[in-house]
């Protein structure tokens, strides 16, 4: 009667302090040991403690970046969890419900769902004197549902609490109580209702986009970081604070975002690769400085981990509504590059590329993430650290400066990039300013000079067009119908395309990784299709507007928009496309 599973979705939900996330971690470890690819996500309110929290976990045979459509196993620590999440449980799914606080509320689960009601919390307090142990109790029960060997479950618990030995025994005890409960309910070891498939296991890491990006920046030689805490960008500040010092660098928690970005500018001015990372209101505050980096020609990298706006919006929810600001924000016209990562691997690779590009164009480069890409974790192949290259662009060493004869900080060149000497270098003295200036850096409003300088700066991005990261293609390239999206849409678009293909609807997919300047690849893709679905998490179709602004007709582009803070699932997105195709 055991049903094999190849795509397993679990959810654990309860009040903030319940430890939902611990169960997800442990369950993830169990799946990973069997070779499953993982994706994990959290659904939290903005409050620090308490408030409803859900941890989500997906284990798959092939890598997936996103949750599936329905939940196979749902551990609900209270009635609210059932009320909020019950409808997501699959027809043949399992609900393990903590009945300590009352009976299972009616009317939230479909008929086929198997429910196990156990007063975990009460039993944990009674037998182990701490409610928190209910998590391992629950894990014991689930591992039996999934036909996982008891010894495996014990091993992940031991590993998890290795640093706190006093917690190992009570957690194991709780797990054994979970086994005992399973024994009484017809789920003996090796004979659960679900059996996980065996997957070929290769080396993998489980990492969030934020950590992957932060590691990429470190490896790319970033040695100065300034930030101000803000969800969902804070983990980059945390990572840098933990690691940068060991490499001779400095990470600062500034007094606000204005300070953070200007500190990064000051550090960049001295030739140190400098970074700041922020979100929402913080990226608004930084616009003046990004414009300044454009005018004064300072290499600056800014991560925007987007969250739902406007204003303080929904800090813990995902959105892609800063696209227009990143591309057009900041006063005046100045060149900039905007890269967008769709998963952790992208985040790592693009962090390296963004850092080098900022040096090459001596100007601002954004790495755009969104809460989903930033904070969800997935298993990906370990990053290749052996092929990283550091590109110094047109930076001068002392010898090169000495033979140049005459040094002008803003000398006008064919590709717009001026050779660059750092403070501290003899004979390289310069004036750096955001005011319009002549080649020497002296403030100037002379019309001819103004035009030359504007054109010079604009040429810098043209010169790197061929080196901007290309996008990821998927689906059937020959199809006349395309689907296009960035960031959090990347994983779900792929699954949707596979799903529709199995119904005979073929789509060509593109996930651009450079969104500004709009690369030739994107232009050609859109131009070659009769219809392109542009999938975005925002209200106004910002990405489609950008494509329109570079000449694409709105007749062929169809926006698929969502702005409720929740990522698309494959079926949901497929339905939107089916509706589009029917109309």
């Amino acid at each position: 009667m055991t049903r094999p599973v190849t795509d397993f979705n679990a959810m654990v939900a309860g009040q903030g302090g319940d430890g939902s996330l611990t169960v997800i971690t442990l369950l993830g470890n169990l799946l990973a040991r069997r070779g499953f690819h993982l994706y994990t996500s959290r659904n939290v309110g903005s409050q620090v403690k308490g408030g409803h929290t859900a941890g989500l976990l997906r284990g798959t045979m092939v890598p997936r970046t996103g949750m599936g459509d329905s939940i196979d196993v749902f551990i609900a620590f209270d009635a609210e969890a059932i009320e909020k999440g019950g409808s997501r449980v699959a027809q043949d799914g399992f609900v393990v419900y903590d009945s300590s606080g009352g009976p299972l509320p009616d009317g939230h689960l479909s008929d086929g769902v198997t429910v196990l009601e156990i007063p975990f919390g009460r039993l944990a307090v009674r037998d182990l004197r701490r409610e928190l142990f209910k998590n391992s109790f629950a894990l014991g029960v689930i591992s039996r549902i999934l036909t996982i060997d008891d010894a495996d479950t014990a091993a992940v618990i031991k590993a998890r609490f290795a640093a706190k030995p006093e917690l190992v025994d009570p957690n194991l005890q709780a797990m054994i109580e979970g086994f005992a409960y399973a024994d009484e309910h017809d789920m003996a070891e090796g004979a659960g209702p679900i059996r996980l498939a065996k997957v070929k296991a290769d080396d993998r890491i489980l990492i969030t986009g934020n950590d992957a990006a932060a590691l990429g920046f470190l490896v790319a030689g970033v040695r100065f970081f300034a930030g101000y805490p803000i969800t969902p960008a804070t983990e980059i500040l945390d990572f840098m604070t933990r690691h940068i010092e060991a490499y001779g660098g400095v990470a600062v928690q500034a007094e606000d975002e204005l300070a953070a970005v200007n500190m990064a500018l000051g550090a960049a001015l001295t030739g140190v690769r400098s970074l700041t990372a922020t979100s929402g209101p913080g990226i608004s505050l930084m616009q003046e400085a990004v414009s300044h980096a454009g005018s004064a020609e300072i290499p600056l990298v800014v991560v925007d981990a987007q969250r739902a706006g406007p204003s303080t919006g929904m800090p813990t929810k995902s959105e892609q509504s800063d696209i227009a600001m990143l591309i057009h924000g900041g006063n005046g016209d100045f060149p900039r590059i905007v890269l967008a990562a769709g998963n952790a691997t992208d985040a790592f690779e693009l962090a390296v590329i963004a850092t080098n590009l900022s040096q090459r164009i001596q100007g601002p480069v954004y790495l755009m993430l969104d809460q989903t890409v930033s904070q969800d974790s997935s298993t990906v192949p370990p990053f290749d650290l052996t092929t990283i290259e550091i590109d110094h662009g047109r930076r001068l060493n002392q010898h090169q400066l000495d033979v140049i004869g005459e040094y002008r900080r803003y000398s006008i060149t064919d590709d717009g990039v001026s050779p660059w000497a750092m403070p501290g270098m003899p004979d390289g003295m310069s004036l750096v300013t955001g005011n319009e200036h002549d080649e020497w850096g002296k403030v100037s409003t002379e019309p001819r000079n103004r035009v030359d300088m504007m054109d010079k700066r604009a040429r810098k991005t043209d010169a790197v067009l061929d080196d901007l990261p290309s996008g990821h293609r998927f689906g059937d390239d020959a199809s006349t119908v395309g689907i296009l999206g960035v960031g959090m849409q990347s994983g779900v678009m792929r699954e949707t395309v596979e799903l529709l293909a199995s119904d005979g609807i073929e789509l060509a997919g593109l996930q651009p990784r450079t969104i500004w300047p709009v690369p030739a690849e994107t232009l050609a893709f859109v131009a070659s299709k009769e219809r392109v679905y542009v999938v975005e998490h925002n209200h106004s179709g910002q990405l489609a507007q950008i494509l329109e602004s570079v000449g694409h007709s709105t007749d062929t582009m169809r926006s698929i928009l969502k702005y409720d803070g929740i990522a698309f699932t494959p079926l949901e997105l497929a339905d939107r496309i089916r509706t589009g195709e029917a109309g």
Partner: protein
Amino acid sequence: MTDTYRPAEPIWCAGCGHFGVEGALLLALSDLSIPKEETLVLAGIGCSGTIQNNLGTYGYHALHGRVLPTATGAWMANPKLTVIAAGGDGDGYAIGMGHLIHAFRHNPSFTYIVMNNGVYGLTKGQNSPTRHGTRPIDAILLGLSVLETTFVARGFTRAPEQLRDLTVRALKHARAGHGFAFLEVLSPCVTYNDTYALWDAEYVDLDTDGEHDPTNRSQAFSRVTELHAEGRIPIGLIHHTERDPTAALADPSAADIGPDSHIASYEDILDRYKVERHNR
């Protein structure tokens, strides 16, 4: 030998106090024989925010109000540089005031010279937070009230020798790694707020006052508040303490970023994310 920019001629109105600040700074740099290539002068936005163009050092024109964080970043990235931040009272005490308190608190080893003229010169005469008769703020008192401050002084362009001396002391303090050297200069704007006569009548020189002990913070605080009550404005070295230079500052500008030398340790970080497999 490579040539670079020629220092600009000041753009200030004849009689502007900012000339005095520039003169004192140039003398102090030469008194201390600080090479120009090792000097980075960052200025705010305002008439005052053009001083960096006239010196022949590395110069940077920060955003309005942001000269302190920019200087902080530059100094942290390369603490070998002699970093000097300069700007107006609007720049430092209005739009940029939030940063001043944090600079006092963090005590980074660079010099900050505020050219206080009680007015927004560049935008033609609006009140600044220090304008006489507008419930003005006193940044010296503010500095004294942040317990981390190590150097708080005020000069007056009418007392050029003292101003040169205070500038020298400020630069020495910062260069020795004692921390943030804060020097406010009464620097009248002859065009929009001519305060020469006013300050001539109001100033009291604490450097020549045998009673004043600049190492005693609370005495300095009381003295400054008492003088305010009398309608007087103190100049001189108001407060000074020597902090032990911060042990072994990081110097990111000298960090080795070549990936090859770090691959093993980058791999160690990556390893922390490795997924444990069952049947390896």
